[in-house]
């Protein structure tokens, strides 16, 4: 009990300043304080409980109990309304579960007095109980002795019957800020602090400024302001004369002047100084730790346990049931079993080298990181450091293109080496490589480059072929477009852009004769018939047949006679070409026949028998591109009604009556007798430049401007048997040797390449093509090198004419 008392006291003390009761509360719960759980005489818990139960059950029974409390309470109980209020209040407090056991409404008021005195505070409850009566008596007297008028006024206003209660209330008010020793602190909370004499409530009082009254009392009657006849002067006089003026204050609610008592003044002073209102309150009392670690045998509070603490909770039961079920079903495992195996152990204790998964057959192990070279050293040899230009180049390169991912650096000592900033990057990239890079087995071509070179018969074994430059024929001042060798092999004719045709002796490189013509010579061709000595020269739109007068005089005169013996046919036809016999100076120079063509002639070529002469006049889309002249009959014919494409060059078949026409991309072979197209060869190149026919007649080579030489086997296919890309630049001319298995090609790169091209009689065996010699000698002028090549008719010699104005002989 002692413990409990101390607690009570503490609570009292702390709550004391808040203790205020108003009538307002009393209106609703008129005697809220009257009923409480305070054990009165016996002061036992059991009784208290009884009381509670009784209260709820029966009102009537309550009354005697209250009677027991004291006769003083008698008048209260007469008031039925108040009882009702009591009940409701008590019920509330019971269920609020917060009320203190040691409270009593009756005693409360008395206790208030106690507080005033402050003397009995420390006494026990029992003592308080005992002194209750005496105190109540005192209390009645005390306010009166105070002699304060306010109380008197109030008394008048109040209903007369309720003296005791009223008095206590009044005293409460009088003491103003005084606080009761009420223990049941929560009761206080229910009441607002309001002046019960004036019912206007908590409003600004200046609203009543202009009225004679100041509010209304409980009965609804006007409360009139005290008559104020004091003016400023009176006020001043009062101030001067009245010794108590300084302690007189005006009550706003009633408008009355109140003279503060000594205690009240003291209280004001203390509050002004920031002290506690109660003189006796020791703010530095030693703190008592109720909830300490020491186990006490008594509960901290004496509050009975709730009913609910005795009734098993249904919700909890449900929850527990669920958990139990879940555990039973294995849905919940109380806790995970602890790992027993150590983190690391001998994983390969039972390794079976043969137990390799099938997957591992496809496994491509990741390649290891590249090992660093000298240049990565912190102190590399000086040659591995980058020079300034190299460094700049390195910096300008894309990071992906760099050969080294870092800049080689040199540090004087190990201490000076800094951290490598891209270390984490490099590791990360390695990680990415490991899991993101597609892997593929790649067979590394480990071929010896020598094995790639095809095995060809040695050029030595394929001799004879021209190997060295032996003669240079100088004399032309401009590029030599065309050359031709006489069928005997003794003379050479060359036509040049300087408008001359020169005749050379092959063996001495002497220029025997120079014939001037009226334009840049595009083509020359020696009549292949050894019994006729005629050379066809084409310039501009003219073809001239020359008799050089070289060699056997008999032959020369015979050919002259051949031309002069021509007899005009009876009926003259309209010819495409004007035939004219050269006379005078021209005849002196050797001009025999002059053929005027409608267009510029680019190429002339003889038939093998030497009677027919074909001329090419390239003109796209025209029907007149190729004409064939018959010299003996001075007749001209246009073999094609229509030409497809731009004709590049033409050629007669050496044996059979076939005629080859090369356009830009195709070579067409016509049968002259049947007058039909027999073959169309596809050259697989962009632009054919030249063409030569094997003396056997079954093979054709075509040179093209896109550096290719195509060998066609007419018996095999219309597509090239072999395409050779030996030259670096456009091919200008190709030629076959008449007897030896040789062919040559001249190109803009200034070289002549001689190849061995063996054609076998056996149809099953493909021709053998072996390059045997690269002949160089011509200098390149105006981006042109060799313009024409031709073989000596009997010897394995090759002539070439170039843009440097020379003709060269390779033997």
């Amino acid at each position, binding site marked *: 009990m002692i413990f409990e008392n101390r607690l009570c006291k503490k609570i009292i003390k702390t709550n004391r300043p808040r203790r205020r009761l108003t009538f307002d509360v009393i209106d609703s719960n008129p005697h809220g304080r009257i009923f409480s759980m305070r054990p009165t005489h016996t002061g036992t818990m059991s009784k208290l409980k009884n009381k509670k139960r009784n209260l709820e059950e029966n009102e009537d029974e309550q009354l005697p109990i209250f009677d027991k409390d004291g006769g003083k309470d008698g008048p209260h109980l007469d008031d039925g309304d108040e009882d009702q209020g009591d009940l409701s209040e008590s019920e509330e407090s019971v269920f609020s579960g917060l009320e203190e056991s040691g409270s009593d409404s009756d005693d409360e008021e008395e206790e208030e007095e106690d507080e005033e005195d402050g003397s009995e505070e420390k006494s026990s409850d029992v003592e308080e109980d005992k002194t209750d009566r005496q105190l109540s008596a005192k209390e009645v007297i005390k306010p009166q002795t105070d002699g304060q008028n306010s109380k008197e006024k109030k008394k008048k206003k109040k209903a007369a019957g309720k003296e005791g209660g009223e008095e206590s209330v009044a005293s409460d008010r009088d003491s103003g800020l005084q606080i009761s020793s009420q223990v049941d602190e929560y009761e206080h909370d229910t009441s607002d602090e309001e002046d019960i004499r004036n019912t206007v409530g908590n409003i600004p009082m200046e609203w009543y400024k202009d009225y004679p009254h100041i509010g209304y009392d409980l009965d609804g009657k006007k409360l009139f302001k005290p008559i104020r006849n004091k003016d400023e002067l009176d006020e001043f006089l009062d101030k001067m004369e009245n010794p108590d003026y300084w302690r007189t204050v005006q009550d706003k609610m009633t408008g009355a002047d109140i003279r503060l008592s000594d205690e009240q003044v003291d209280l004001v002073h203390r509050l002004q100084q920031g002290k506690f209102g109660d003189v006796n309150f020791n703010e530095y009392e030693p703190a008592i730790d109720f909830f300490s670690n020491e186990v006490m045998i008594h509960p901290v509070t004496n509050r009975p346990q709730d009913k609910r603490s005795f009734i098993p909770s249904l919700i909890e039961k449900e929850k527990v049931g669920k958990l139990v079920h879940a555990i039973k079903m294995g849905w919940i495992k109380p*806790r*995970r079993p602890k790992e027993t195996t150590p983190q*690391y*152990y*001998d*994983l*390969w204790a039972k*390794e*079976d*080298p043969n*137990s390799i998964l099938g*997957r*591992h057959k*496809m496994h491509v192990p990741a390649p*290891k*990181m590249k*090992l*660093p*070279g*000298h240049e*990565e*050293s*912190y*102190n590399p*040899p*000086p*040659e591995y450091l980058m020079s300034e230009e190299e460094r700049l180049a390195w910096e300008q390169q894309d990071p992906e293109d760099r050969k080294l991912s870092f800049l080689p650096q040199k*540090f004087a*000592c*190990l*201490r000076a080496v*800094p951290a*490598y900033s891209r*270390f*984490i*990057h490099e*590791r*990360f990239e390695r*990680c*990415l490589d*490991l*899991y*993101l*890079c*597609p*892997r*593929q087995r790649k067979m590394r071509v480990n*071929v010896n*480059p020598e094995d790639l*070179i*095809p095995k*060809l018969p040695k*050029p*030595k074994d394929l001799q004879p072929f021209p190997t060295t430059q*032996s003669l240079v024929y100088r004399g032309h001042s401009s590029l030599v477009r065309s050359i031709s060798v006489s069928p005997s092999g003794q003379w050479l004719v060359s036509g040049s852009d300087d408008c001359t045709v020169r005749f050379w002796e092959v063996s001495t490189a002497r220029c025997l004769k120079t014939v001037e013509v009226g334009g840049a010579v595009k083509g020359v061709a020696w009549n292949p018939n050894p019994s006729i000595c005629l050379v066809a020269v084409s310039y501009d739109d003219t073809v001239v047949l020359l008799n050089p007068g070289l060699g056997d005089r008999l032959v020369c005169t015979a050919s002259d006679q051949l031309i002069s013996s021509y007899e005009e046919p009876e009926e003259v036809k309209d010819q495409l070409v004007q035939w004219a016999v050269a006379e005078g100076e021209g005849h002196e120079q050797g001009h025999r026949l002059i053929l005027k063509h409608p267009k510029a002639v680019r190429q002339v070529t003889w038939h093998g028998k030497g009677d027919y002469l074909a001329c090419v006049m390239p003109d796209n889309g025209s029907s007149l591109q190729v004409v064939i002249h018959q010299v003996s009959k001075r007749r001209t014919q246009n073999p094609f009604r229509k030409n497809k494409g731009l004709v590049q060059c033409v050629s007669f078949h050496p044996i059979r009556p076939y005629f080859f026409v090369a356009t830009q991309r195709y070579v067409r072979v016509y049968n002259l007798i049947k007058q039909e197209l027999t073959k169309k060869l596809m050259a697989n190149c962009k632009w054919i430049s030249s063409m030569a026919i094997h003396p056997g007649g079954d093979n054709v080579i075509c040179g093209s401007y896109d550096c290719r030489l195509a060998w066609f086997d007419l018996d095999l296919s219309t597509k090239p048997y072999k395409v*050779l890309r030996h030259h670096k630049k456009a091919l200008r001319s190709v030629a076959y040797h008449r007897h030896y298995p040789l062919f040559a090609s001249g190109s803009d790169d200034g070289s002549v390449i001689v190849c061995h091209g063996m054609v076998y009689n056996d149809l099953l065996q493909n021709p053998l*093509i072996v*390059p045997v*010699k690269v002949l*160089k000698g011509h200098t390149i002028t105006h981006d042109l090198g060799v313009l024409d090549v031709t073989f000596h008719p009997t010897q394995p010699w090759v002539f070439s004419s170039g843009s440097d104005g020379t003709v060269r002989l390779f033997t």
Partner: protein
Amino acid sequence: MGGLQKKKYESGSATNYISRNKARKKLSLSLADFRRLCILKGIYPHEPKHKKKVNKGSTAPRTFYLLKDIRFLLHEPIVGKFREYKIFVRKLRKAYGKAEWSGVQRMKENKPAYKLDHIIKERYPTFIDAVRDVDDALSMCFLFSTFARTGKCHVQTIQLCRRLGVEWMNYIITSRSLRKVFLSIKGIYYQAEVLGQTITWIIPYQFAHDHPTDVDYRVMATFTELYTTLLGFVNFRLYQTLNLVYPPKLDGQGEFSLKSECEEDYALESESYSEKLAALSASLARTVPSVEDEEAELDHFPAEGVKKKKKNLEQNKQKKLFEGLKFFLNREVPRESLAFVIRCFGGEVSWDKSLCIGSTYDETDETITHHIVDRPTIDKQYINRYYIQPQWVYDCVNGKILLPVEEYFLGVTLPPHLSPFVEESEGDYVPPEKLKLLALQKGEKPPEEDEEEEEEEEDDEDDEEEDDQSEDEDEAEDEASLAEMEEKRAQGKSLSVKVTPGKVKPENRMRTEQEEKAEEKRLAIMMMKKREKYLYDKIMFGKKRHVREANKLAAKRKAHDDANKPDKKKKKKKC
């Protein structure tokens, strides 16, 4: 001819491969999980031979996996664990949302975890496989162990990495299997030979990392997870092979000697112990008491020949390179690396007591033979020891001999540090320092400096000549033929004008023969098929480039030497 028409892409390579997205859907995993799974299981994309066929006619860039690989992943128990973890995260988030703290606690206790043991076993069916693949694991672990203990990854991971790295180094020390060390600008490369496998790893220099932002640390962490597991098992097995206790324990004596000092600097007993292990200064405890010179003489088979024997002998000699030497490390040198290297070759090493735990003797010890310093001068020098720069140790290891110390004294310009990983084949550029080293290895005495220089120069010149020859072969041929022609032309000219008494031209038969051969070859090359020609050109281009690079290096070196020669001579004169 009957039968159903064959449909496209229903057989052959189209069915053997599966694109990544399809694979992911098949496994019903998120991309992140799929990536993790691929990393852990070692699944990588394959490049199909005919991409278009596999891609069903489309040429869109896709990564393809082997369908077999993906099927194989389907049975992986760890996929289930991934899903469990996903669910766990979802539940946890929910619990957090509802503020059910007890629930959160409980869930965290029951967090699903997975083990990678079976994956390691499956990826490396035999122990040798695992050892072969330990390169990347080591590099990664050593990198992670240098990370700060904050931020980028879990502290436990870093600690584990550190522990495994130390275990590995201790093993290498005990087995004396280190072969090569290289100080690069990136870090220090080590190469060891473990069970016949060469293993190379790199350790960054000891600096704080500037963590890049464009690196996905999750990928790295996943790799590390795998690598730590692998390395742990490998370490365990390796320790077993040497009869060492795993986890490593210090030898009784070592423990005793280390116990007294610096104990109070560490809060935890375990911490100080791991630091002592990391100090690498004491030997490890064995399960079976070690027998000195336990290496039994290997049986020799005459068939193996002398070569192998010689090699073995050499290796044994290298293992005992620093035996009997006592090193002391000054505080500015990289302690761990040097201690590791020196101990690997039988040397004794110590350092200042305040530098690190585990020092065995003081600077004042009279028996110290080498004092490694990396500063220009040192105030107090003891007479009976060499003061050398740290590069000496590494160069000795790479050279397999104790190099003369004169070039490594304090304040001396160091000779270049060469990479031990470069093995020059014929035609490669060999730096003169390497030639010098080779000569030293053969036992030749280093000649006087002047001679040496001359020799070097000669070497250089020889090299260059050779290179030039090889490079200019073709050109020379061309030129020769041209010259020939010109000569001929000249002859022709002279013929046409006048006849001069001819000189007997000294005909070099060899040369003409060579030229003939070269021309023959050139003509044959002309006749090559297009495809072969392309290949041939490529090979030849590569060869020429190689030669060119070597020449460039040689030229650079020569220029450098020429530039420095006058300075040297001046110096000598002054001397």
